[in-house]
């Protein structure tokens, strides 16, 4: 029986820590900057610095390193796949070994390691953001970040609200899927035997009731929101206003210093 368990990528782990308490805007800013910086990172010492930063941040946010690593596991396959492609297709003069027409070069292997590590660091860093920021804070932060665009007609509040609702219903949908699967298994549904096509077809009795439930839920939610006079972002105030204070300044400044260190170490390629 397929059950959905464990810490998933993008899951929020509530805790009381300096990182958890930070204004989501500061965390978003740092994450976006770190994405750019990680892609600029070429040297291995700089990458080691990134790795240590990630684990120090995990320690501060009271996130067990094991759950952090576990959350990135699904992406690992993708990373390994791209790395393998890099080994063979980078091209270079020093050939280490070859399989048929495919030649693995020394340059390719180094590039493969570099891109693989980079992607892995990127996933870990962004996982830290979702681990320490609740979905509602995250969408508040995004709304604030996209706020200036609303002047050009971009529906910042609505997009953020859609995100919040989507994130809020992921666990609910998992639960409902599990319940429907259990009901169909009780009626003799078999998801494990047969070929790929047969197994895919076996999921029809799960997907249809799930869609029906999703539409019903959407309908109920819309009525509930309207009953409480929801009418979009215009003139709406916040229950928890975002506050940018000295902790945020400290966080951004520390990250700026760290960036300088990364750029400095980046010269040893």
């Amino acid at each position, binding site marked *: 029986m397929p059950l959905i368990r464990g810490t998933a990528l993008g899951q929020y782990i509530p805790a009381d820590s300096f990182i958890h308490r930070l204004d989501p805007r500061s965390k978003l800013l740092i994450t976006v900057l770190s994405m750019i910086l990680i892609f600029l990172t070429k040297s291995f010492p700089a990458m080691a610095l990134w790795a240590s930063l990630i684990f120090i941040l995990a320690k501060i946010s009271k996130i067990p390193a094991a759950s952090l690593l576990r959350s990135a596991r699904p992406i690992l396959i993708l990373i390994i796949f791209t790395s393998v492609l890099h080994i063979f297709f980078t091209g270079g003069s020093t050939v280490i070994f070859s399989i048929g027409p495919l030649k693995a070069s020394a340059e390719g292997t180094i590039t493969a390691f570099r891109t693989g590590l980079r992607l892995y660091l990127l996933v870990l860093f962004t996982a830290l953001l979702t681990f320490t920021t609740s979905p509602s804070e995250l969408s508040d932060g995004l709304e604030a970040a996209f706020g200036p665009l609303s002047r050009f007609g971009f529906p910042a509040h609505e997009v953020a609200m859609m995100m919040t609702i989507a994130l809020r219903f992921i666990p609910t949908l998992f639960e409902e899927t599990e*319940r429907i699967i259990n*009901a169909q*298994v*009780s*009626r*003799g549904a078999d998801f494990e035997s047969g070929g790929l096509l047969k197994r895919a077809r076996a999921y029809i*009795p799960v997907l249809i009731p799930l869609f029906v439930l999703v539409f019903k839920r959407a309908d109920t939610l819309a009525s509930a929101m309207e009953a409480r006079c929801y009418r979009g972002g215009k003139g709406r105030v916040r229950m928890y206003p975002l506050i940018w204070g000295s902790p945020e300044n400290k966080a951004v400044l520390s990250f700026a210093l760290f960036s300088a260190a990364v750029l400095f170490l980046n010269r040893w390629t």
Partner: protein
Amino acid sequence: MSLTVNDLSYTYNRGLPTEAAALKGISFEAEKGEILSIVGHTGSGKSTLAMHLNGLIIPQSGEVSVDGMSIKKNSADLRKIRQAVGLVFQYPEQQIFAETVREEISFGPSNWGLSGDVLEERIFAAMDLIGLDRSFAPANPFMLSGGEKRRVAIASVLASDPDYLVLDEPSAGLDFNGLCELTSLLRAMSKNGKCVIHITHDLELALDISDRILIISDGDVTAFGSPLEISEILSDICVKGLILPDILSLSFELKKKGRINKITSDPFELAEEIRASGTACR
């Protein structure tokens, strides 16, 4: 030939900080031909227990066995057990997926390998049993009313002709007529030699229809016995989250004041008790 549960325990998220014991050593036996009600408050472990009875959850410790077949991981008997134990979930209408009522009801039996005339017979037998007119067969189940949908969903479990029928809160959201039809269905099933295991939080309903009642609280068996025995036990102990029927509370009070001799949850019996002892007490 019976369904036995022996010292069954189950803990959710075992080994994690969020671990929670749902069942703590439950034992009971359900016989064919009886209605056994399992009564407990929300979060008492009722639904977890229900999912053990047809092997949706494999016991962590203890044993569940159906007609002598024990539920074990990767057991070849697991499909046989699921065929013998029909499980009707809470709000079963949410499992409906097919385009016609006929197709929906045939899902179970055709998964168990039935086809042709036997399948046809099973479908109509189930519809008759639940009181669903045969003219509904070609209808779209999504277009039916709530009560009709629930009947289609229950029929889809009955069509597999299970020897044991487990129903998780089947009365939730039913009106009075629906409730009467449900109870007469359960009685008819048990008269036909089936074992009905009825899971509910409604003690009044359980006292009314059951042959035996198992009361669980926080994953533990609090009491097990006939409705009369349960009534007597409940006059001494208070069970968390369990609402006593008014008639039962009234008869407890009357007994305490010496007005009647026998506790009962049946209004007519209580009236008779009061009448019989009326002169003696005065």
